[in-house]
């Protein structure tokens, strides 16, 4: 647990470093342990065999010294040489000193001490016996000395037996030591192998542990990446406890996931907005399309209206043609009226002259009256003709007046373009009214003339006497004629005015006609424009339809987007 916590704070590099350090340390420890074991073993072996060697050497020297000592003791018995005695004592002393060094020597082998103690006692016995033998020999008691010597030899045999026993015991002890060394060697080998095995196990553990430290977070991160690639953005990698690099990587991936999730959320919201907007757009474009249809329809209507207007204007134009023709006729009529008025004037002039002459001839009046009666009759007829003509003028005027009225109506309908035309039409109307009045006056005058002529004729018929009267009447007639002349003049003038008016009228009509042509052209342009508008509207409508379908596609796309985003989210859930 502590290791885990330690590793948690560590980077892979550190983990690897620590792992390798531990491995190296383990190898070093195992090596040191092996070295220690082997050197310890070799020290043991060395010590044991050094000791064995020492012991063997000492034992050998000891045995040799004892042998020499016994030799010296024996030879003293034979030759009584004091040198042999001294040699015996010296060697004995040496042997005991050797033995003392044995006992003061470290006793490594079991039983070693006991063996050497016993050997010392045996040697002492031998020495004691030989000492007695020597003294006996010195005293000349040869037999006793020989007995003692024999006793000494048996003791020597026991001593040699003891020495052999020591050698055997030592050999046995060495064999045991060798066995125990062998066992020790085996034990140490086993220990070494165990340590190596443990080191290997620890190494494997560390390697596994290190691999797991790397592979475990790696697997987690790979899993995270796979989930990410499948669109699951809710997956997070637990970075606590990971090595530093993986912690950084995991944190980064977690951040990436979060960022991606945020982006997808944003995209989802946006898609929804787009979908909503596309829906709105679709409905709006539908409405626009419908509106465009309506507009197209309206424009179509405008177009057809403009067409019918053009048609009507053409009709008006044609009427104006008629008006012009009639105005031409009216000019011609007025010219005739003018001519007639001239004729009336000249006639009246001539009548006045005739009256004057009539007056002069009044005296012959009876004749003349008769003649005059006939004349009067002719006059009545003429008057009737005038009357008829005037009636027709009145009718023309009436017609003109009607035309003017219509024209003004049309002008009003034509709007600003027809404003001038309306003035003209007004003027035409006034002229027609004046013409009517004049014609009425003419009718009334001709009626009065007729009446008076009839009366005059009757008077002439009835009274020849009334010549003075007639004369006076003649004068009156003269003045009447003058009036007529004047009236005729006025008529002429009126006729001239009518003519000029009619001409103006014609001009006005022509203007009107021109204006109308303009109007027509305008209307036609308007119609064309309307057609174009209609076409544009159709195009707009088509565009709207396209837009609608596009927004439908947009809607579809945003729905798909939404669906995808939803999948992302649901995949995450």
């Amino acid at each position, binding site marked *: 647990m502590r290791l885990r916590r330690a590793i948690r704070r560590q980077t892979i590099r550190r983990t690897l470093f620590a792992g390798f350090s531990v491995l190296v340390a383990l190898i070093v420890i195992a090596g040191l342990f092996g070295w220690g074991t082997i050197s310890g073993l070799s020290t043991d072996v060395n010590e044991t065999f050094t000791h064995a060697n020492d012991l063997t050497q000492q034992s050998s020297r000891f045995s040799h010294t004892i042998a020499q000592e016994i030799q010296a003791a024996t030879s003293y018995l034979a030759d009584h040489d004091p040198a042999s005695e001294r040699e015996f004592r010296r060697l004995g002393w040496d042997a005991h000193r050797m033995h003392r060094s044995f006992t003061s020597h470290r006793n490594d082998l079991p039983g070693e001490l006991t063996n050497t*103690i016993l050997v010392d006692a045996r040697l002492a016995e031998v020495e004691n016996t030989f000492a007695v033998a020597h003294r006996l020999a010195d005293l000349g008691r040869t037999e006793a000395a020989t007995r003692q010597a024999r006793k000494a030899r048996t003791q020597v045999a026991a001593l040699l037996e003891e020495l052999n026993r020591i050698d055997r015991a030592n050999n046995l002890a060495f064999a045991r030591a060798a066995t125990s060394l062998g066992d020790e060697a085996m034990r140490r080998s086993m220990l070494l192998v165990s340590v190596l095995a443990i080191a290997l196990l620890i190494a494997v553990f560390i390697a596994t542990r290190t691999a797991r430290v790397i592979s475990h977070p790696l697997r987690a991160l790979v899993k995270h990446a796979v989930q990410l690639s499948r669109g699951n953005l809710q997956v997070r990698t637990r970075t606590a406890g990971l090595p530093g690099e993986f912690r950084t990587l995991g944190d980064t991936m977690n951040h990436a996931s979060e960022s991606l999730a945020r982006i997808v959320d944003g995209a989802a919201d946006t898609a929804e907005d787009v979908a909503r907007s596309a829906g709105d757009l679709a409905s709006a474009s539908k409405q626009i399309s419908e509106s465009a249809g309506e507009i197209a329809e309206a424009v179509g209507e405008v177009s057809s209206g403009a067409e019918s207007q053009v048609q009507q204007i053409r009709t008006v134009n044609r009427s104006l043609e008629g008006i012009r023709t009639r105005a031409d006729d009216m000019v011609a009529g007025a010219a005739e009226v003018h001519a007639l008025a001239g004729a009336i004037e000249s006639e009246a002039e001539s009548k006045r002259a005739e009256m004057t002459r009539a007056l002069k001839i009044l005296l012959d009046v009876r004749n003349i009256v008769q003649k005059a009666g006939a004349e009067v009759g002719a006059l009545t007829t003429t008057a009737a003709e005038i009357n008829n003509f005037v009636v027709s003028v009145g009718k023309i005027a009436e017609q003109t007046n009607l035309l003017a009225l219509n024209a003004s109506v049309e002008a009003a309908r034509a709007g600003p373009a027809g404003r001038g035309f309306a003035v003209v039409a007004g003027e035409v109307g006034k002229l027609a009214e004046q013409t009517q009045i004049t014609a009425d006056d003419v009718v009334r005058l001709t009626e009065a003339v007729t009446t008076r002529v009839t009366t005059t004729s009757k008077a002439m018929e009835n009274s020849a006497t009334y010549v003075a009267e007639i004369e006076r009447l003649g004068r009156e007639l003269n003045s009447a004629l003058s009036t007529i002349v004047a009236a005729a003049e006025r008529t002429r003038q009126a006729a001239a005015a009518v003519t000029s008016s009619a001409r103006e009228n014609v001009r006005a009509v022509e203007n009107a006609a021109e204006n109308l042509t303009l109007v027509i052209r305008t209307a036609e342009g308007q119609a064309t424009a309307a057609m174009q508008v209609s076409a544009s509207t159709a195009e707009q409508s088509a565009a709207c339809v396209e837009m609608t379908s596009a927004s439908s596609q947009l809607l579809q796309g945003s729905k798909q987007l939404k669906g995808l985003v939803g999948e992302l989210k649901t995949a995450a859930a």
Partner: protein
Amino acid sequence: MKARALLLLLAVAGCGRGAEPYTIGAAGPWKEGYGVMTRRGIELALDEINRSGGVRGSPLRVDARDDQADPTRAAAIAEGFVADPKILAVVGHVNSGAMLAASRVYDGQLTAVATSASSPDLTGVSPWVFRVISSDSLNGVILGRFANQIGGRDQLLKRAGVLYENDAYGRGLAGAFRRNFRGTLVTFDPISPKMEDAETFVAYLKARQAGIVFVAGREESALRFLREARRQQFKAVFVGGDGWQGIVTDPAAAEGAYVGTSFNADDPRKEVQEFVAAFEKRFRTKPDAFAALSYDATRLIAKAISERGGKRAGIRDYIASLGPERPFAGVTGPAYFSAGGDPLGMGFRIAQVSHGVLTTGSAQ
């Protein structure tokens, strides 16, 4: 064995208050005369200690084993003591050969205070081994000089014969004597502890006209030799080492013999006289050096335990720490120890057997 049981009984009875007793070991040839005296010294010390309240409030107990003066047995007993954790220290061994063998076992493990093991070979054998008797190399010097003094101008007394028991003690003491004696040695022969051939040696020494006979041995061989000398009417000055102290048991044979000893019962010092009085009261005999040495060794160990407690190493350290300004006041003298474990400050005197007792009146 009976004696050992008695000793245990005494030890326990002496201070039966139930406290865990301190136990020390003791080893020697209990059946020998000097062994008996050694045991008596131990028993007396134990009695006095336990009667006066024990050590640190606990009774002191002694586990006594008989080593029969045999080095092999001594080594085995030493191994037993070392292996027993209750044993805090050992009084003994008594014999040099036994002590030499046992020293190897005690080394580094257990403190042993030898009583009468005086072999020079014991000097420096182990930092855990001490002895209350001075080394034979020192005793031999004193004895050799004494022999020189006896000789004076008498040519006869310039001829000495030396017999030695052929063991560590005998060889050590005889060797020291030989190095310090300036006269002529007519012989220098090993003898067995039982001295079966005393007749031969006495006859030989008589024939060689030895004026002084120095025997480095113990009372058994000494008595045999002295009796044989008397039988052959061999007149010479007989000198022995501390091993000869027991010869007083045969005053007829021993009369006039000189004995080197580390204890003087006539010492007027108060502790010596109290010891002698207590010993005589209890055992109806005068104490000799064996008894005095074992008495001192036992009291030295008890003192070390009371000072340092029941730790083996503490006891060793205490004994090693004694010095001339702070010695242990023993009946054989104020004791402290050299680095080699030998006692410094203890005396070694020459006494003469006179009317059945050792007297040191004329001694140095």
